[in-house]
């Protein structure tokens, strides 16, 4: 062995054991509880949605890389994660083929068109969802929920709303509240809340077992636990999820609504913890992340209360994704020791 040849490479010669694949796997592990639980609550059809969405995303990646003659990188688990995240934003009774198409769209249009991993401007899973959302609005409506599941958490409030405002019993709490508060369609009148309807009665189902909504919305608790796991293994930072949710909660209470209800209901938690924190589509530096999260909160709040849709998380994230290059251009850390004049000017 003496005098043998050694590997020559440049410094540093040691590295952290973290790899891109390991990061993806951490996120998948963080999502595993909520995924399994969604199938438990919603039944076997939720499983079909999951499989179709993941298959679509992986097929899209495979086809694009093969087609472009690039090395196939399914083993980095990023396409798998995209498919999983997408499935968690879909209603459990969705036709499997819509999930499949949405998965294909996610990796083909959302990611590979831009050049693949690390080059996409928008969150691929949300691109897939957005296309499905506008193409099959009826099916994508959160009301498309198997009524049998509702039995597990039906509350007096929900029944009262269903009765009072004549929505389907599968309507999501956010959709129900939207109608309740909507002066145009609410039979109760402007700003009025039907007697006995309290958003707080939704806390428990939203937290533990929510039958109304997308797969990933079955339990706020499991999403938060997943987020804590990702914080603990240093895959995500606290800034984006905490500031995003905090901004929505604060603005919501300014509007006179129940901030906890609007935090737990809908896609805010899964969006804030798992989608807004996507590396590629969020700003690089801490200050940029803060600005991005504040923007997410503001846009979500605007969309939730001043648009036709009850929900605003998806479009808020896609909108803010589009601003990331600008945020990164102007809000990057200033070189150590410089006093003013950030590096800046034109960037690519």
């Amino acid at each position, binding site marked *: 062995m003496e005098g043998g040849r050694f590997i020559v490479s440049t*410094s540093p010669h*040691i590295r952290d054991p973290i790899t891109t694949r390991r990061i993806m796997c951490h996120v998948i592990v963080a999502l595993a509880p909520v995924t399994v639980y969604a199938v438990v609550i919603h039944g076997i059809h939720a499983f079909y949605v999951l499989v179709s969405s993941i298959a679509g995303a992986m097929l899209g990646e495979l086809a694009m890389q093969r087609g472009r003659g690039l090395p196939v990188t399914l083993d980095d688990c990023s396409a798998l994660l995209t498919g999983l995240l997408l499935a968690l934003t879909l209603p459990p009774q969705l036709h499997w083929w819509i999930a499949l198409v949405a998965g294909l769209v996610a990796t083909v249009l959302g990611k590979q068109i831009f050049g693949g*991993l690390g080059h996409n401007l928008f969150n691929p899973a949300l691109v897939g969802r957005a296309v499905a959302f506008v193409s099959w609005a009826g099916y994508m409506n959160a009301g498309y929920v198997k009524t049998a599941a509702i039995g597990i958490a039906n509350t007096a409030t929900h029944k009262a709303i269903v009765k009072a405002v004549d929505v389907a019993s599968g309507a999501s709490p956010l959709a129900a509240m939207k109608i309740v508060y909507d002066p145009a369609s609410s039979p109760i009148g402007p700003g009025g809340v039907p007697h006995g309807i309290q958003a707080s009665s939704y806390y428990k189902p939203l937290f533990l077992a929510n039958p109304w909504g997308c797969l990933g919305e079955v339990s706020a608790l499991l999403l938060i636990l997943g987020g804590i796991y990702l914080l603990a293994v240093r895959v995500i930072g606290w800034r984006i999820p905490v500031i995003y949710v905090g901004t929505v909660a604060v603005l919501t209470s300014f509007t006179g609504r129940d901030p906890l209800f609007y935090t737990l209901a809908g896609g805010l938690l899964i969006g804030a913890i798992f989608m807004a924190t996507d590396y590629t589509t969020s*700003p690089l530096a801490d200050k940029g992340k803060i600005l991005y999260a504040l923007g997410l909160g503001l846009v979500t709040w605007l969309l939730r209360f001043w648009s036709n849709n009850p929900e605003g998380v998806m479009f808020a994230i896609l909108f803010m994704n589009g601003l990331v290059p600008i945020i990164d251009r102007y809000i990057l850390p*200033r070189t150590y020791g*410089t006093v003013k004049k950030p590096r800046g000017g034109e960037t690519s």
Partner: protein
Amino acid sequence: MAELKTFKGGIHPPYNKELASGKAIKEAPVPREVVIPLQQHIGAPCEPLVSEGDRVELGQKIGEAQAFVSAPVHSSVAGTVKAITEVANFTGAKVKSVVIEADPSQPEFSKKPGKDLEALTAEEIREIAKEAGLVGMGGAAFPTHVKLSPPADKPVDTVIINACECEPFLTCDHRLMLERTDDLVAGARLLKAAVGASKVIFGVEANKMDAADALRSRASSYPDVEVEILEVKYPEGAEKMLIFALTGRKVPPGKLPSEVGCLVQNVGTALALYEAAAWGKPLYERVLTVTGPGVREPANLMARIGTPIATLIEACGGFVGNPVKLIMGGPMTGWAQPDTSAAVVKGTSGVVVLTSDVVDLGEEGECVRCGKCVDACPMFLSPNFIVQAAKRGQWDKAEMWGALDCFECGCCSYECPAYIPHVDYVRKAKAEIAALKKK
């Protein structure tokens, strides 16, 4: 415990200091032949003062500095000059070197009659440092007398002794602090006198509390010497980071520490200055750590300049396991060696041997913009953007993103989940930017 002083950014690699931190310094064997490069420092190369066939004595000056930013070199053995020729140094560059065949029996160094260290003037101390061939012994090897001559309009009030030893694995400075405490403090006070500063601060990382305690008990007799404990974090010992951690001052880009009234010197340099001033000993040997999972008996060795790595490895019981990487210096900034032939120079702080189970050579992947490099960069640069610009050959943009401010600590590459060698790209960018500026 109160929060320890530190800087922003940086990383926490496994330190692996325990392999060698308990090993007392011992003499490395004198090799049969030493190879002494005539340029071991930043600056101009030396002109040889000897020719083939000449007899040389231990400590004899064999290369004379030809410029201000340069340092003379001395023979590390008594013997005969065998050749003066170009030899590849630890970076692979061919450097004119003096090859000396050592006598079978080597004399002890005879100390010159001691001087009154307290009475030395700043000018005398600088001259001593220069004549002894002192350079920064932390790795950069910048001629010490140059650092001791700050511009007249930038008075230095604080001398900082870099006692962090933040490179993983290395323990030679730690041992020097324990075994040579008194001499070290005396050397530090000489540095202080040379620049007319009002105080000396030892910055010691919290993983060397025994060394800090030893320094403190010695420093208690001098009101001008302080010992500060710093957080264990890499690169705590980088000049600008250390100055910030200890004084809160920030050295502006492209400026020297004297800009903010500081002078930073490494433990080994302070000790070498003491030996030069008190004993008349030129810098012809140094303490270094031979360690890593691939070394049978890790050790801290006093080795002659010009000793080939092979001699050091042999002195430590040879290789063990499956050694795949041989590094001159620490694992974060050191130079990988193709074989054991390279010779120890004044800036060599260690030899680290890594085995196949700890070397992780992945294929460079796509940046996912995780931002870990940005968070880790102690200079607050955006390493991923420098890489992006370098990949496209946009050197002006690489410069805009701070390529020239990078001091190549390697934190970005260490943290990168995609195995991107940022430091490589930065070096390329620096060379290209320099070439463009020459035009």
